[in-house]
């Protein structure tokens, strides 16, 4: 049975230049579709993929990624903003790799577009008043 899942991959600095995705194709016969890619401020790679393949091979591919040192997360919209805590300063705007924070050009209010969020967690600790939170 073929399955298809959207996942977020965090590459530590020592793996950024390794041909890992190539191995997914070659060894596990995976099809992949890059949804988003970014090098984050700590020089880690961030890759959001839709990964498709036979279930058994898919499980093997995920196991391979984890064993290599890649952090694998399911792509779920689990980052939320505590509206009463946000001061709309805008410190998050240039931190977010996918521009999920948008400043209204007139009011300067900062809106969080959760549809764009890839749950990379970068805003959690860079928000000065810690208004962003993970919801389970």
């Amino acid at each position, binding site marked *: 049975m073929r399955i298809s899942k959207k996942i977020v991959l965090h590459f530590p600095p020592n793996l950024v230049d390794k041909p890992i995705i190539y191995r997914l194709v070659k060894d596990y016969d995976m099809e992949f579709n890059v949804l988003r890619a970014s090098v984050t401020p700590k020089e880690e790679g961030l890759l959001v993929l839709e990964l498709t393949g036979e279930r058994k091979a898919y499980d093997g591919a995920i196991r391979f990624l984890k064993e290599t040192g890649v952090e694998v997360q399911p792509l779920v919209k689990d980052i939320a903003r505590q509206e009463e805590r946000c001061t709309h300063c805008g410190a998050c705007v*240039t931190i977010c790799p996918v521009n999920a924070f948008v400043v209204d050009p007139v009011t300067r209010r900062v809106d969080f577009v959760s549809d764009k969020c890839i749950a990379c967690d970068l805003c959690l600790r860079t928000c000065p008043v810690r208004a962003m939170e993970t919801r389970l």
Partner: protein
Amino acid sequence: MTKTIEEINERIARGQAVVVTAEEVIGIVEKKGVAKAAKEIDVVTTGTFGPMCSSGAFLNVGHSKPRIKFGGGKLYLNDVPAYAGLAAVDLYIGATATPDDDPRNRDHPGDFRYGGGHVIEDLVAGKDVLLVAVAYGTDCYPRKKIETWINIKIINEATLFNIRNAYQNYNVAVNLSDRTLYTYMGLLKPRLGNANFSSAGQLSPLLNDPYYKTIGIGTKIFLGGGVGYVAWHGTQHNPNVLRGENGVPKRGAGTLSVIGDLKQMNSRWLVGTSFLGYGATLTVGIGVPIPILSEEILRYTAVKDSDIFAPIVDYSKTYPEREPDVLGEVTYAELRSGHIKILEKVVPTASLSSYYKASEIAATLKEWIKRGEFLLTKPVALLPGVESGIVFKPLEERSI
């Protein structure tokens, strides 16, 4: 055209004062001209809401039975150390204090999730705060230890007293190096990855009164959601910086020291703040009313973001090494466009102070004045101006 504060206060008391925000005044002056607008407008309200580290609160928690003297001992509020070097039960909690057991930057970049600024926010929110003190004990103050809850509603005094707030203009921080920097200007990505700034610009109090012609000691202000006063000029107050033709400083210049009763403030406007890899602090809301005493003063309040320049400073070397170089100047209008150009590179910009909330402060103060609830005060002395000859001095170390 000249007006006095007394005349303006009479109009406020009658509910007839014309009050506009520092944002609204820009369009009014463009439409009607300075002379007509100055005649009509009585007060322009300003606002700023940003992290301000030189903030803190004096508390008097009352005397325990038997008595204890904190002075000379050690003192903690919610595990955050407070200053005890005062009389028996007075203390000062500073915004940047962090718990003794906080890993700080040993686990870099440190999180600084809870510090003095957060204690102040919790106090203002009416939450119980744990006080732990150890003292050496005297004949008149025999207790050597106390652990108890305190609450702002019960203790004698809680006075917010910030020795430096509301900087008149500030640096735009960038990073020319190859590594990420964690600064009080936020996270700075390597190789000019972003540019962070921190001023309300055209809404900011001292940028609307560039030569300190109305704001002085005793000026009644919006402070932390309540009423406060300008106590003094702030530390590092430096009127003698590069200024534009409009008189507006192009560098960090004047500052305010402010004071007020913490009990009537609101935790919406005093928010505990954490800068990753830098430390804990307090985001403070301040709004200053500017009485339109003359056309000259009105002209100053009509300043707009495109007329205010800020210096771009490299925080990888220039700032930490206290070097004077700037990479260029940009206006707040450019900064608010979302990106600026530095050394031929397009760099995205972000603000650390909230313009949205600064607008709300200016609008709130405007409402208070319009409703006749907030009268203006005449300063008992003005802040030191350009003529003061103040020189902003560095610390030159001497051999010991």
